[in-house]
């Protein structure tokens, strides 16, 4: 019963939260939000997209703490590099990263993290070889393969594995 009404409980919950955020808290809006959430869940069920399974809440919390800090740090690094002008030129280039992560949701979140971090850009993912082509602005400052694998891929693997 539960499964047929709410096939995607997290999606329904986030939709309800979004509705409340947009329209304010009141009994009427709560009811309307529930209707929207259930209807959207039914549409989602029709699409038959595979349901992501969250295995580790601890890894989610860890990732949620690490990522904003990294985004902030690379904001500072990239700003500095832009303002430094020609004197502070760094070598940019492509990096190929072999990924063990194959889950679609996990990859989507990895894409969000990598694009949200100034200084790294997701260029191409090869699903046959499971490799990711990245472009990084400052090639020499870090070991990018190790950084992406340990900081993001490993916790994502724990979450969606």
């Amino acid at each position: 019963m539960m499964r047929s009404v709410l096939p995607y409980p997290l999606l329904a919950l986030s939709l309800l939260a979004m509705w409340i955020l947009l329209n304010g808290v009141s009994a009427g809006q709560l009811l309307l939000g529930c209707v929207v959430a259930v209807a959207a869940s039914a549409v989602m069920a029709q699409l038959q997209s595979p349901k992501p399974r969250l295995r580790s809440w601890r890894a989610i919390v860890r990732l949620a703490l690490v990522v904003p800090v990294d985004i902030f740090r690379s904001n500072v690094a990239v700003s500095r590099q832009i303002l430094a002008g020609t004197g502070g030129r760094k070598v940019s280039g492509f990096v190929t990263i072999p990924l063990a992560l194959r889950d679609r949701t996990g990859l989507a979140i990895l894409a969000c993290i990598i694009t949200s971090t100034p200084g790294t850009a997701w260029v191409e993912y090869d699903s046959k070889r499971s490799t990711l082509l990245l472009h990084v602005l400052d090639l020499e400052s870090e070991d990018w393969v190790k950084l992406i694998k340990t900081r993001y891929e490993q916790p994502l693997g724990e979450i969606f594995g």
Partner: protein
Amino acid sequence: MTGMADLPIWAALLVAFLVLLGAVLTLIGVLGLLRLRSFYERVHAPTLGTTFGAGSILAASMIFFSMLETRLVLHEILIAVFITITTPVTLMLLARAALYRDRAEGAEFVPLHQEADPGSAGGDHSGRK
């Protein structure tokens, strides 16, 4: 703007600081768009505007309207979420289009269809002069 004067001084300062910070970060991103050399380098610059640039302006907006209406205003979280999940789409579209063209033209600095053994860094592809 109505009720701007009702804002306590600490909140006004904080809001002003955050708005300015966001504007400066976005401006640096725009400068980067002008200054960086290759397409692949330029693609990094606007990210400043879509992360902490937008983030601090949204935080300022959250504080401003929460103080003014004396209730928590959190719409801005939604804006941040939607920016974060939609930028990869356009970025990948642009990057892959550029990659496709560069490969078709036989540009040397672009890695070919990942024939190199996985795990090796791309090496010295310093981009277009």
